[in-house]
Each structure stands twice: as C-alpha cells, then as structure tokens.
C-alpha cells in the first residue's frame, strides 16, 4: 500500500555502523560487501516505508479525530468507532487518488518537457 516492498521477507540483519566511523580491518570480500550493501539498502527501504506510514497515520489521527470526535464523552462509543473506521478508509482512498493524480501529472510534464526539448 505504501508502494514499497522489501525484496526479501526475512528480517534485516542488524544495521551496519556508519561507514565513515568504521575503522574496520581487512577489506571485506566482494561477496560479503555485496551482502552488506543489500542489507543497508533494505534497511533504508524499510525506514522510508515506516516513516511514510507514520506520516499517514498522524494525518489520519488529526483529521478523523477532528471530524468524528466532536464532543468527547467518557468513552469511545461504537458509533465513534464506526465513524473513525469509515474516515480512515476514506482518507487512505483520498491519499491514493492524490498519489495517482500527482504521479500522472509529473509524467505528463516530463513528457511535455521532452517533446519541447526535441523540437529545439
């Protein structure tokens, strides 16, 4: 749903230390270097996906709380929960529509740019 999926389903190995402060011994063999590279990339992908999910959750919390819980009472009632559930679904749907529109627009602008460039 966030447009990213890790290539492997196994949990990532522990994060490697930052390379600038890694006074590590002998040059790693190329296969272990390859593995370290993949691990680093997987970790970055996971962190991006996580921060994206977090951002979406934060917005949903803001928007749906504001719209559904207008008069906070002593507990979250079942109609509150029903409203929150529907609001979440709609917000994610809106996110998907906005994403699609934006991505398609960028592609069109890029295409127009390329055509203009060719004509010059």
């Amino acid at each position, binding site marked *: 749903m966030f447009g990213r999926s890790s290539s492997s389903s196994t949990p990532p190995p522990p994060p*490697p230390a930052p*390379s600038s402060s*890694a*006074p*590590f*011994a*002998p*040059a*790693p063999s*190329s296969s272990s*270097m*390859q593995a*370290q*590279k993949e691990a*680093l*990339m997987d970790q*970055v*992908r996971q962190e*991006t996906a996580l*921060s*994206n999910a977090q*951002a*979406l959750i934060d*917005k949903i919390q803001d*928007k749906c709380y504001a*719209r*559904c819980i207008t008069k906070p009472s002593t507990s979250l009632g079942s109609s509150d929960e029903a*409203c929150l559930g*529907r*609001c979440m*679904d*709609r*917000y994610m*749907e*809106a*996110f998907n*529509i*906005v*994403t*699609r*529109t*934006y991505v398609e*627009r960028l592609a069109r602008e890029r295409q127009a740019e390329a055509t203009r460039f060719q004509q010059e």
Partner: protein
Amino acid sequence: MSTPRFDEATQKELQQFLDREQANMRMQSTIHTFTEMCWDKCITGSSFGRFSSKEEQCLSSCVERFLDTSLFIVKRIRNLPRE
C-alpha cells in the same frame, strides 16, 4: 587510515540509491501535504460513505489546479516588467 567499508563502485551505487530514496521521500511528503489540503477542501461531510464521483473529481482537480497555480505564478513573475 581506515579501510573503506565499500569499494568505490559500491559507494557510488549506494550514493545513487540514497539520492533516489531521498527524491522518493520528498515526493511522499508532497503527497501527504496535498492529501491533507485536498481532503479539507473536498471532503466536507462527516458520514464518510464511499466517495461520490464529484468528491473524487474534486480531489484530483485539487491537485491539478494547485500545480497549475504554481506554474502560473512562476510564469507571471518571470513576465513582470522590470523596473
């Protein structure tokens, strides 16, 4: 001198990967901002049933017109008469 963790080719590959990821993050962040802005503009009811086609249309026009506005402003500033 410390031994670099990755050879030069791998470092370059990682740099390109990170640049792509960063561009991706910037785009995601823009999309979050647009979603919030367009949600406030277009989705005003509070029953949250399935979107009507009008609401869907509003959401995508909201994005398109925002980008048009941005292009318009840049164009107009560029064409302002110089003092």
